[in-house]
């Protein structure tokens, strides 16, 4: 069994009753308690100051160093149904967004505590669900209203970051600009030609919009051409969420990427290359695709460097035994021969044939998405053909696009027009790992600067940390990717949540008052309670993030949050003032420069994480029994399960 060293609170109760293949819980919300307990695992991975966790396997003694909620669940052995459900939800979030799973899990826990409280107060399940759905709609409305257009952001902040005053940065969440951003979005929608790239002329169009000029036209008019790059850097800074180094790499990558096209950040053209043994400061971004090669292959690369190469792209393995997916090898085939076989090796024959074909087509480089057999690599090395295997499918596609090559499944399929041209190979001596048993050489494969491919080199002296560094990089990359895709961000550092809390409470109060005026009755009272408890869940989220910074205690965090909520009750710019609160809390003793940083969150990621959290909660809330299949009599009796 594996366990996290910080174990969840012991409120987990295993279901009590069961049938041969069926368990029935007594009608208690055990599932909700379990969900809340599982969510506690995510507490320390919230916010900018994340804690590492060791996950240790007691039986094998292996351990893993993890930093994100997604990796925690990946490394745990989950046996309960609710845990499995949580894991599936977190995986779904991770698959699409690559970020936000911590937030998802925390809120699933916080809101399941809210639901538990509702159940204890005797509110029916259907009312809890409809109340929470209403609450979610309110939150979505808030998210929509307080989202800031990314274009607007570039305009608000001039590119000399240091001169920006506190107040200016906070203006962003005010009402008029939100409208502006929508207006500009609308504008872009209508001029379908100009919206592809945010060139200066596109900006001028927006600037001339009568809405857009009002609040901060002076900044817009001074926005120079390279501001797009800066704009991204500013947004990226706000989205770094504590992973500054990783985000810097992303920004560097975007800058390289911008030369090609700019309005989006295409994550599919990014490769990460992990080099253990170098200090973390050596991490960098380089155009092209960088791979680590063995010495033998490196010598081939040395011969090929600085000359235009012809490339073959293989979609599958490069070996004589490989057959495409779905090909079934017949079992009953016997080979008979009339004369004594002279030991002609099938693999040898195939390899010679393939190498001859490659030489005939003048191919110097083969990129293989699967594995290449050792024999082929050796043969190719002798003939000075470089074989690179385990290339990501998206990279193979990028090479196909850039070199006009056509990926094929079998090497024997190759013809003249399948072969791509114009690839260059370059050896990077500075990046050679070689710290351990196998020495390796970094080789950069590029297509002359027009493919848009680039490699992020991640380095660390601590091998176990590399995975976490890679995860952090991808989380940052996807956060920026989604921000540019949404064309909007949310005010971060808890400001959005605060605004949601404010609106939820307001609505709760309205619900109470309609109940008193006897128009609604008990339903409205219940709705008020549900909304209020939902808001408490969000407060819990904000205060946990504050606690994780290590500067305030839980109690103080909560007091500060509720004080601020009371003080600013009814003010429009509550979000602006509150975001400041977080920063103050975080930066009491740090230098003044970092306190000027605006923090942003992703719109779609946050909304989707919240929705997934609620969906998960609703499923668990409506569940009253577990059916376990394949339980044998003995264990069933042992675990006090009811057998059918």
């Amino acid at each position, binding site marked *: 069994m594996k366990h996290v060293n910080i174990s969840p609170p012991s409120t987990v109760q295993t279901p009590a009753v069961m*049938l*041969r*293949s*069926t368990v*029935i819980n007594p009608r208690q919300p055990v599932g909700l308690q379990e969900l809340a307990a599982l969510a506690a695992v995510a507490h320390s991975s919230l916010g900018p100051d994340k804690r590492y966790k060791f996950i240790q396997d007691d039986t094998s003694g292996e351990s893993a160093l993890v930093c994100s909620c997604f990796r925690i669940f990946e490394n745990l052995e*989950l*046996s*309960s*149904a*609710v845990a*499995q*459900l949580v894991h*599936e*939800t977190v995986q*779904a979030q991770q698959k699409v967004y690559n970020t936000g799973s911590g937030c998802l899990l925390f809120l699933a826990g916080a809101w399941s505590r809210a639901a538990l409280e509702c159940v204890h107060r005797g509110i*029916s399940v*259907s009312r809890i669900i409809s109340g929470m*759905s209403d609450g979610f709609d309110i939150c979505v409305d808030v998210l929509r209203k307080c989202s800031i257009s990314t274009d607007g952001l570039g305009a608000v902040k001039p590119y000399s970051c240091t001169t920006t005053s506190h107040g200016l940065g906070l203006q962003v969440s005010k009402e008029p600009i939100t409208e502006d951003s929508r207006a500009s979005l609308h504008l872009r929608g209508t001029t379908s030609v100009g919206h592809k790239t945010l060139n200066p002329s596109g900006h001028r169009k927006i600037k001339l919009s009568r809405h857009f000029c009002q609040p901060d036209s002076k900044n817009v008019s001074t926005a120079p051409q390279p501001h797009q790059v800066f704009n991204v850097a500013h947004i990226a800074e706000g989205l770094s969420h504590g992973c500054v180094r990783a985000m810097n790499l992303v920004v560097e990558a975007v800058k390289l990427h911008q030369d090609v096209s700019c309005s989006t950040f295409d994550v599919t053209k990014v490769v990460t290359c992990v080099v253990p043994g170098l200090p973390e400061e050596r991490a960098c971004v380089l155009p092209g695709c960088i791979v680590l090669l063995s010495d033998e292959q490196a010598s081939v690369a040395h011969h090929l460097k600085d000359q235009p190469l012809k490339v073959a792209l293989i*979609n599958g393995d490069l070996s004589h035994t490989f*057959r*495409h*997916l*779905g*090909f*079934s*090898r*017949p*079992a*009953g*085939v*016997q*080979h*008979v*021969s*009339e004369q004594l*076989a002279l030991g002609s090796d099938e693999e040898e024959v195939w390899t010679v044939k393939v190498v001859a074909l490659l030489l005939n087509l003048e191919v110097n480089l083969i990129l293989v998405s699967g594995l290449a057999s050792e024999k082929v690599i050796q043969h190719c090395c002798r003939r000075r053909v470089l074989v690179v295997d385990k290339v990501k499918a998206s990279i193979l596609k990028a090479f196909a696009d850039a070199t006009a090559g*056509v990926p*094929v*499944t*079998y090497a024997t*399929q190759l013809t003249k027009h399948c072969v791509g041209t114009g690839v260059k190979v370059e050896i990077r001596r500075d990046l050679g790992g070689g710290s351990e048993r196998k020495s390796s050489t970094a080789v950069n494969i590029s297509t002359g600067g027009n493919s848009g491919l680039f490699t992020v080199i991640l380095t660390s002296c601590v091998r176990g940390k590399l995975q976490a560094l890679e995860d952090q990089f991808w989380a940052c990359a996807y956060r920026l990717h989604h921000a540019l895709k949404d064309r909007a961000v949310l005010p971060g550092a808890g400001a959005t949540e605060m605004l949601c809390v404010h609106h939820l409470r307001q609505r709760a109060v309205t619900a109470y008052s309609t109940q008193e005026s006897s128009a609604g009755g008990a339903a409205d009272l219940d709705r008020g309670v549900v909304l209020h408890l939902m808001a408490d869940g969000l407060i819990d989220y904000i205060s946990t993030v504050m606690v994780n910074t290590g500067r305030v205690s839980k109690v103080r965090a909560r007091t500060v949050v509720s004080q601020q909520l009371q003080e600013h009750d009814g003010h429009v710019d509550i979000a602006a003032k509150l975001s400041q609160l977080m920063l103050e809390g975080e930066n009491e003793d740090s230098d003044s420069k970092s306190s000027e940083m605006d923090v942003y969150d992703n719109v779609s990621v946050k909304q989707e994480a919240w*929705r*997934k959290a609620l*969906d998960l909660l609703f*499923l668990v809330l*409506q*569940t*009253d*029994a*577990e*059916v*376990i*299949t*394949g*339980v044998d*009599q003995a*264990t069933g009796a042992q675990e006090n399960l*009811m*057998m*059918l």
Partner: protein
Amino acid sequence: MSRLVKKSPSLCVDLPLDNTDVCNKLRLLRQLMTSCYGPTGKLKLVHNNIGGHVVTTSTSSVLLAAISSSQPLVNLIKTSVLNHVSRFSDCGLFAACLCLDLIEQAKQSGLRGNVCIGLNRHFLAVCVSYLQREDCCCKVKLDFCSSHNLIALARSVISSKPACLLTEQETLHISKLAVQAFLLTLPCDKPGTVSLGQTVTICVEGHSVLNSAVFPGLLVDVTGVLCVNKSDNLSSHRMLLFSASLAGDIPELGEGIIEVSSGVDTDARILDQLLDLGKQAVEDDVKLFVCQKVIHPVLQHYLRSRGVIVIERLGITLMEPLILLTGAHPVATLHTSLQPKAYGKVRDLSIRQFGSKTLLHLLPHGESAICTMILCHRNETMLSELKLVCQKTEHVLRLTLREPYALFGGGCTETHLAAYVRHKCTDGVTESAAVLGCSESEYLLGMDRFCSSLESVAKSLEHNGGNSLIDLTHAHNWTVHADVMNRCVEG
């Protein structure tokens, strides 16, 4: 074959219902079923003991299929309910609840087994004959002139499964789509025997339910293999459909052994044959080349380079709709030349994007009753339940063609029937009892038990500890809002 374990002597047990263990298991099964029943029913998490995939459901077909018991009695009930569901799609939970409740009531009543059977059969006959009467008060005739009734019927089926987690608006949307799909599968003015078309369901995860849609024709998933030239706008495209695998392997050897002399490359020989087929298809101007199974990449490459759209791994489920849509004859072998009559036709091809899925939309050349329903939902669990519910709705709607009546839902039909039986059977107790060969008191006791079984099924619609109110004059059940329509197919 010799036995590894010595055969143990057979054990005969009589009167299984007197066994407390059996009774406990039946009670447990009843709890399991009744707790799932209705729109506010509780969900069950179904998973295996080693932590596999979790299914969240309250659907009898999924739940019962997962259950296996050591008790033959439990298995008997389970399989008969599953048979009912496979035939009618609907009312599996109702059947299970009523059956288990009747067993329990019969046991409690202390009536002799054969008397009990006779009485229940009698009261069931009373109910069925009443339901078939024209003046039956708990059924409504479905009016096919307006879609209102059909949508209400679809809606009551869809809203009965809470694991779909649909809002009011979403429920209505899906109900409308279900009716739309149903109407699209009805062939228009065709003489002779009418055969209904098919609805193909495609699930798209991670999108709002409101993005779900219904299209006439067939949509095929072509994610990742996109290659359509919009250049040629032919009014009809010739297509070719293979049911045989074109993977290039040696198919179904069976027990036999093939001897291959060395130096003969079987793979290359078969590939040559495949390419010959491809050449003929290209010569015959085939624009769409579809295979149920795998197509050899070399053949795919060849066809694509000549502008043919290639779809492989279509799957067995899409074969029949595609045959109906295009009129193609699937080719089951690669050893003959292609016959002209094997080719099918498609009127139009277009690409539709649903989330991460790229779909190729095929429109029929002539009249066809094939449609495709794209179901979207936010996560896999809710999506799989939604798919089940939609298939069930389709079936229920189809059954209305045979018998255009719907019964009142929300427990009203059951309470009404109970009231009817009580009222009807109190007259002439003596004669009926004599006919059935039991005493009057036994007759009355049996009637009471039968009726309370019906009522208790109606009552089990309420799961949150609320009260069930039964209007004694109109025999109306008030727990659920009135006029929820539901169709019960009583077997």
